[in-house]
């Protein structure tokens, strides 16, 4: 029987301290322990990208990262993109261009697109398609997704995901949520 491991991480600007089984996957920590169900489990085999979140500012497939590997990191999920009522430019563009049908792949698609625009603020259509290779959409044929990323790129800060950094208030709320085991 393996023993639990303490993990401290910041998620969307809130600090969480949890004891986790070493085999707990990051996506399950986010969804089941913290109640952040925007990151979806599609294929569970590192293929579809629906579980994509940012760890320290870079896109990863959270079904293939152990929660213990995220100890000490800053995690950003789709829930951390909008600032109050203000949608992130990528969210706006997916909305405006109808870059989705069922929406299942959308959170991962947007998080991967943010990584792409951070690396390449003005991508060509081909570069967008290459940059989103890790994300599968079964509805759209990708056409409007590519258009949405291209339109979002016109916004000067589309690639920037301001990880708020844990404020004292956010840390307090996060620690309380973690202690209560929301969604667990």
């Amino acid at each position, binding site marked *: 029987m393996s023993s639990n491991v303490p993990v401290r991480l910041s998620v969307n600007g809130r600090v969480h301290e949890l004891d986790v089984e*070493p085999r707990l996957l990051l996506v399950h920590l986010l969804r089941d322990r913290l109640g952040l169900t925007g990151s979806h489990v599609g294929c569970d*085999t590192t*293929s579809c990208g629906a579980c994509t979140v940012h*760890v320290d500012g870079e896109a990863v497939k959270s079904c293939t990262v152990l929660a213990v590997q995220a100890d000490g990191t800053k995690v950003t999920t789709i829930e951390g993109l909008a600032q109050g009522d203000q949608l992130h430019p990528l969210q706006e563009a997916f909305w405006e261009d109808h870059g989705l049908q069922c929406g299942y792949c959308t959170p991962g698609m947007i998080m991967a697109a943010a990584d792409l625009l951070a690396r390449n603020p003005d991508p060509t259509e081909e570069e967008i*398609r*290459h940059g989103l290779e*890790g994300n599968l959409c079964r509805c759209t044929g990708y056409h409007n997704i590519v258009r949405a990323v291209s339109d979002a790129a016109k916004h000067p800060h589309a690639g920037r995901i301001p990880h708020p950094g844990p404020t004292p208030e956010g840390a307090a709320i996060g620690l309380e949520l973690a202690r209560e085991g929301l969604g667990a």
Partner: protein
Amino acid sequence: MIPAEFDYVAPDSLDAALRALAHGGEDAKALAGGHSLLPLMKMRLAVPTLLVDLRHVPGLRGAQRENGSWRIGALTRHADLQGRAELGIVGEATSLIADQQVRNRGTIGGSLAHGDPASDLPTILVAMEGTVSVRNSAASREIAAGDLFQDYMTTAIAADELITEVRVPALEDWGHAYEKFTRRAEDWAMVGVCALVRKGADGSCEDVRVAFTNMASTPIRATAVEHALRGQPLSSDAITGAAEQAAEGTDPPGDLNATPEYKRHLARVLTRRALSRAAGV
């Protein structure tokens, strides 16, 4: 899918990690980015009892130029190498591994230690005639690329050893190309071909190296192609002729995506493309 239970440690030095590996025996596994190991663990194809996470081990990251070589720390991620022109074929091939999310986690040492003949970096190491430095808690040694890959996912690295560094020649005056054929964009290569070509002043092929991904149980050199092209003029005809030899000596495994015969066909086509691009023809 959930991995089977395991114990977990994250030592803060290389020595401590090597001791933990030695202590854990055959069922202990080192964890770098985890993008080869964790999928196997989730499918319960790998069931290690101890994971030694290397994320706190310092000094194993980054690429440094030393004399005519690049020394690349084993924990350097594909994302840290991708697209860097100064790294030549390493910069090209790393940008084609899987997808960006995988490249943000996967490491060069992890990929080489995994030894999957369908993955890209083993082929690159074999083509470049690079070496890896490995260490256990008692000693360190060098393993040449040609000796590293022994069979399907089987390398010369012992259970208590870790790759610490990868060393490849810079090959600055060589043209390079990696051609990879996949069914879906992010898939492993059905077949991959690495071509390195050094052009002489008279336009002839002074030297050439060709290596294959997924054409045998290990990455292999296409020696027949190399022999056919070395010393020849780098014309489109000569390249096409040499590429016809591509399937010689290969033993490609058939799988859901391709029969052995189809892979041999792909090898010939991709070899021609890779050589043409590497030679600038």
